[in-house]
């Protein structure tokens, strides 16, 4: 009895330690970035454009660049990914060869390093389609990169919608599409949104694939065919080229804040959505 009790305690302690280490690392990193970044971050830093390659001025154009690229990537990837998920879960016969092929592709694509998508985007969008380094090239490349995540999380979410919902809806005389659009997708929405958040995180944190396809221009983008620099790319260049470590941390701080805001907003919308189903 006593021996098992002590063993239980030790095991408990081990898990507690692992959890504390994770929390500790996280707090140290965020704290360090906050302390280092805080001195440069103010409203000016956020709202003015960088000058002298980022040595002076703020990061406004890179914030805009990040938002544009993310928006374009989501605009392509969300409708495509969610429709694919609906097709696979609701229409395709589970064992059909096509469904298995699509599933396998999505699974494989999810594990491919982003730089490979970047290389493909560079050759295909930038050079072959002659779109140049641009928001469009970068956005579409990122869309391909996040497509597997969006598709697979949406599939999972749709699969988790209780079968009884569908049966009840159909038994009330709803058509298949009415059932999907009025019952299945709304019920799956929280899961679908989670996938979108994960994807936004990946886009915001991406560098190499973006440099290859959207360039790294510090100018204010005026159209989809303009090149842009995102915050993460800016941070990377500031640090790598020794332009200003201080400003690199300032940029990092803004990225972290942005991610926290996105997560928080997503959390709120999830709460609103699941409010009814809880």
């Amino acid at each position, binding site marked *: 009895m006593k021996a098992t009790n002590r063993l239980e305690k030790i095991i408990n302690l081990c898990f507690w330690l692992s959890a504390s280490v994770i929390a500790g690392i996280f707090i140290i990193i965020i704290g360090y970035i906050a302390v280092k970044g805080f001195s440069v971050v103010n409203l000016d830093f956020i709202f003015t454009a960088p000058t002298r390659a980022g040595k002076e001025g703020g990061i406004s154009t890179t914030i805009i660049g990040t938002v544009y690229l993310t928006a374009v990537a989501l605009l392509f990837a969300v409708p495509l990914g969610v429709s694919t998920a609906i097709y696979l879960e609701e229409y395709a016969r589970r064992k059909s060869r096509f469904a298995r092929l699509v599933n396998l592709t999505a699974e494989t694509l999810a594990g491919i390093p982003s730089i490979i998508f970047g290389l493909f985007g560079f050759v295909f969008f930038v050079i072959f389609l002659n779109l140049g380094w641009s928001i469009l090239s970068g956005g579409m490349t990122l869309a391909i990169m996040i497509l597997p995540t969006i598709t697979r999380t949406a599939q999972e979410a749709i699969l988790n919608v209780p079968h*009884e919902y569908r*049966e*009840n809806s*159909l038994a009330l*005389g*709803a058509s298949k599409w*009415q059932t999907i659009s*009025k019952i299945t997708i709304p019920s799956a929405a929280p899961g679908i949104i989670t996938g979108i958040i994960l994807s936004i995180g990946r886009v915001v944190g991406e560098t190499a694939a973006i440099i290859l396809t959207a360039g790294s221009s510090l100018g204010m983008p005026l159209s989809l065919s303009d090149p842009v620099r995102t915050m993460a790319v800016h941070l990377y260049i500031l640090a790598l080229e020794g332009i200003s470590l201080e400003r690199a941390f300032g940029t990092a701080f803004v990225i972290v804040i942005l991610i926290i805001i996105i997560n928080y907003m997503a959390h709120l919308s999830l709460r609103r959505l699941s409010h*009814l189903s*809880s």
Partner: protein
Amino acid sequence: MANDVKIKSTDLKVFYHDFQALYEINMEIKENNVTALIGPSGCGKSTFLRSINRLNELIEGTSTKGQIYIDEIPLYDKDIDPVNLRKNVGMVFQQPSVFPMSIYDNVAYGPRIHGVKDKAILDEIVEKSLKAANLWNEVKDRIKSPATGMSGGQRQRLVMARVLAVEPQVILMDEPASALDPISTAKLEELISELKNSYTIVIVTHNMQQAARVSDYTGFFLNGALVEFNRTDELFVNPRDKRTEDYITGRFG
């Protein structure tokens, strides 16, 4: 009127892939009556019920032979649209599954699907259906709150209201009381007796007292076949088949 045949099944056979779940079912179900289907679990009661609103065909690998008529219209004809059919044949399942939306939206779901947009009309349908399901007084003050916060018995009556809102002619019920406590069950049975004036009701139950209490006709299924079908008072007092007698006296099942 009450003796008109509403639903007629002729030589109905249902297969799940190679497995035959129903053998030549012939049955005539009378209008504005309650017909109970009894029998041990796995004997095909649900399969039969689900062939009346063609819900079986949503499962991959099912096939149906023979025919079912409602008002002499053959349901398995090529030009019958099952979506249309299901507007006329409502169904209540074993587990009351309310949609994750408000009480109001649950009841309004069917009418909205079928094109009712006017808010005043929807309000009226919702109130009427909840009243008919004996639920109105309990929920009228929180009709916009989530339906998922209701008790099991209330959920089952909400599901009833949701079905009634579509104004079907036939209501199928698959063991609707099996997840309910005795008080909720009594309320549901009372509701069934009220509804039979306006609807043709087919109810699956493995509770024989319940069948005896609520139904006018009873069919006894065994191993995919309809062993006996008769007036409920006849079948329970004077079973013609030995197997029926064994079942209702509790010798198996």
